[in-house]
């Protein structure tokens, strides 16, 4: 990244750099949990998706869900990471009411996936962020404190659901990079179908590690970990607030304590959850109920052969094959649904127009109505029809916008709208000539002015002719005939 886009926090004549590392918890897309056959469906009645294993009944044993293993491998391949042929499940021991076993089964020393990378498309170019590791672990249940005034209620539906913890290297340097990083990670996993990335449902959350140092310094400062932040906006707010808190401490000549903090979204500040001294001793040790996980090269190869085209490759193809700008391509590939929609539209229509219409009119409508592209009110099929109507001169771009507005209401066929409303473009030269003659007749004074050298008036004539045609006149034709008449 070039110097001028560096994110630095100024204090008097000093500049501080912010160092950020993320531990993203991504829920594995899977019908059943990591070690039991209970459903993982979101939104069920509390405690209706709980097996004896999930509730840690005496004598119950975990049995690995192979599908979750494959999902983790798939994600690892998507992150261009090393797949570890041997990994180990460990117990992370701590007591909490929503942790029925009294330990979480996780991976500690030997994760299933090792080092990888994610490419960020920043305004000033690409930046590579290293992935430290990806490991599998069980989610805990949910403690609900605000239903009963005297008791905490526990919902174990989530207990045992498979999570991938994806740990980045401390290579992120700004809230913007965090935004792009999370979106890119989410995009890759959605392409792979390994995590739906739904932050509202808690399918994607992150612990954010923040430290600061003077610009030019090479050693890392003392970091604080902000636990369980569940939206990109809050991550960014938390980073800015936490970095400033740390800088204030340093400016006051104080030390930063390594600690775990929570982000209070209402006050927009982080607060201490526990200090290093109070840190849990999780007493990790290999889970004796599970054998070390061994993955064959055959399985890795099989999964590799099923990997779809990922955002980076797709972007390259869009640029090379469709001549899109890197900016356009980045937008179109950011989400698999968007790129699928785009490719569907351009099957039968012009690429340039499709790009403009999708990133312009369609995105505007989706934004306004707060919809995902999968819920688009206009189908790819009808959008491509509209584009063809523009391309073959049946309607003008301007009329097309009117048609599009109507299409939104129940995905109507643009051909029918054009026909019913009589919006077909007037492309008969004779008819155009007639209405231009009328315009010239009615504006003889302006014609004289134009001929005396006031070229700017040409636009006026175009507008008048359009008006005369009730907006249906073929603009190219109007231009052409007007030029002939006025200059002739």
């Amino acid at each position: 990244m070039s110097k001028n886009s560096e994110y630095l926090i100024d204090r008097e004549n000093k500049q501080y750099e912010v160092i950020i590392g993320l531990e993203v918890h991504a829920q594995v897309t899977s019908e059943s949990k990591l070690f039991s056959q209970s459903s993982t469906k979101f939104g069920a009645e509390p405690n209706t998706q709980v097996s004896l294993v999930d509730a840690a009944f005496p004598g119950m044993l975990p049995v690995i869900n192979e599908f979750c293993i494959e999902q983790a491998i798939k994600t690892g391949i998507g992150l261009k990471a090393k797949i570890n042929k041997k990994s180990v499940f460990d117990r992370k021991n701590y007591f909490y009411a929503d942790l029925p076993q009294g330990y979480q089964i996780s991976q500690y020393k030997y994760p299933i996936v090792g080092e990888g990378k994610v490419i960020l498309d920043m305004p000033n170019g690409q930046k590579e962020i290293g992935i430290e590791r990806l490991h599998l672990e069980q989610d805990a249940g949910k403690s609900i404190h605000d239903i009963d005034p005297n008791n905490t209620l526990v919902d174990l539906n989530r207990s045992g659901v498979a999570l991938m913890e994806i740990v980045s290297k401390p290579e992120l340097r700004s809230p913007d990079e965090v935004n792009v990083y999370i979106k890119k990670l989410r995009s890759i996993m959605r392409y792979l179908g390994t995590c739906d990335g739904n932050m509202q449902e808690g399918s994607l959350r992150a612990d954010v590690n923040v430290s600061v140092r003077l610009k030019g310094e090479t050693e890392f400062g003392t970091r604080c970990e902000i636990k369980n932040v569940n939206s990109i906006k809050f991550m960014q707010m938390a980073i800015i607030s936490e970095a400033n808190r740390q800088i204030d401490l340093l400016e006051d000549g104080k030390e930063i304590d390594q600690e775990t903090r929570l982000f209070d979204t209402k006050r927009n500040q982080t607060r201490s959850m526990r200090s290093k001294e109070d840190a849990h001793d999780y007493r990790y040790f290999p889970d004796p109920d599970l054998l070390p996980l061994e993955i064959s090269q055959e399985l890795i190869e099989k999964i590799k052969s099923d990997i779809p085209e990922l955002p980076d490759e797709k972007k390259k193809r869009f640029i090379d094959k469709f001549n899109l700008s890197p900016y356009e391509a980045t937008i179109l590939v950011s989400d698999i649904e968007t790129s699928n929609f785009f490719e569907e539209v351009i099957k039968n229509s012009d690429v340039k127009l499709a790009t403009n219409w999708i990133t312009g009119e369609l995105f505007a409508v989706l934004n306004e109505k707060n919809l995902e592209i999968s819920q688009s009110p206009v189908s790819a099929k009808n959008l491509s029809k509209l584009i063809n109507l523009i391309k073959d001169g049946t309607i003008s771009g301007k009329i097309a916008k009117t048609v599009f507005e109507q299409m939104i209401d129940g995905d109507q066929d643009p051909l029918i709208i054009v026909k019913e409303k009589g919006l077909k473009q007037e492309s008969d030269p004779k008819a155009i000539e007639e209405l231009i003659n009328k315009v010239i007749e009615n504006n003889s004074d302006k014609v004289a002015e134009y001929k005396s050298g006031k070229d700017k008036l040409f636009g006026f004539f175009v507008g008048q002719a359009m008006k005369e045609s009730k907006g249906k006149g073929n603009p190219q034709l109007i231009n052409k005939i007007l030029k002939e008449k006025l200059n002739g």
Partner: protein
Amino acid sequence: MSDITSQSLFELTSNIKEKKLSSEEITKAFINRAEKSKKLNVYVTDNFEKAIDQSKKFDSNPNLDFKLPGIPIAVKDLFCTNGVRTTAGSKILNNFVPTYESTVTQNLWSQGAILLGKLNCDEFAMGSSNETSFFGNVQNPVGENLVPGGSSGGSSAAVAANLTPVTIGTDTGGSIRQPASFTGTVGLKPTYGSCSRYGIVAFASSLDQAGPMTKNVRDCSMLLEVISSFDQKDSTSIDYKRNYYSKELSKDIKGKKIGIPKEYRVDNMPDEIEQLWKNGISYAKDCGAEIIDISLPHTNYALPAYYIVAPAEASSNLARYDGVKYGFRSPGQNLIEMYEKTRSEGFGDEVKRRIMIGTYVLSSGYYDAYYLKAQKVRQLIKKDFDDAFSKVDAILTPSTPSSAFKIGEKTNDPVSMYLNDIFTVPINLAGLPGISIPAGKDKNNYPLGLQVIGKPFDEQNILNISYALEDKINFKNDISDWWLSE
């Protein structure tokens, strides 16, 4: 025909198959005797009423193809039994009734057996004398105020006292073999991975194994054949071809190489144990076996390694007993207070001691020095056995360093209690099969056992060696029924 309750499993199944006895007669005979044997305190929970109903049901349409046709069996209270209270000998599970069945007990019922009740044991199987049970001591039928061994003390006493034809126990460091030795009965700990751990209240997951406890070796082979099975619900269960242990049982052990490990001659070993071992060796020779001196150099480290690994796993396995979901709860003002009161009041001293040891050895800063080191020792012990088994087919040792001791004698000295497991623990650490058979008596006329250790999955071989030795030893348990009441 001899008294029903003194018959072996083999005799009872034969009598049922030949229609000389009904399941109901047998079941009622055991129940009658149990009613008069309360002094032994073997039962935590009985299932007598249901057992009689089930025996009648069996008799009404007997399936004689079953391996345990209508045979009533009491089991250690560590096996979860659907609809029947399962306590693990602990106050913390005092009110716990599972809605599921352990695989091993399910295997029994699937072959026609009937649940008589749940047998006393040390709390969470932690103990060598059955004295840590929340439900009190068990009396060894061999002599009054004598411990039956542990942790499967209710099981060993019940078999020796003819209160169940056979039973199943669990063995983490000797909990089947040591009580078998103390009561003059047979107990086998199978290879780790032979019997499913699904539905067995866990003590130390990497060591726990269920196994048969019986009056003789033939019964042991019959019961092993039923309970050993591959189970997908236990990830450590091993899928291998199991033998027809009872059909393939043979006294022909001619040419078998039997190893005698010099490291098992421990300091201060009583002469009578030494003599017992010598006798075993000469019987093996008589049977045509070849005796070979071997070395298991890391034997001394087995007990300390065990008392790190087992408590470490236990401290984690027992975390689930927190008063939140099931079992005993002592209310508190907040979550932490509820945890502390529940676990302080719900667990006994020995369990708490091991939870503390386990928590300590897993703590950051101590993990490498204790747990990791212990796991390395465990590998060395395994390797000792691997090396030995390249030269011999089986290993013969005493089962325990002493005979049964008096109730209360060792309760204030945990280390001397732990020393009971010195000959059995290495076998669990190495995951090997081991069997204890009664082989003689000490000066008090208390039984003493010999242990035969085999290669992984070689249960047939140690059963055969034990079968041959049993014949030569011709052990008779003289139990006077001193406890019977009218």
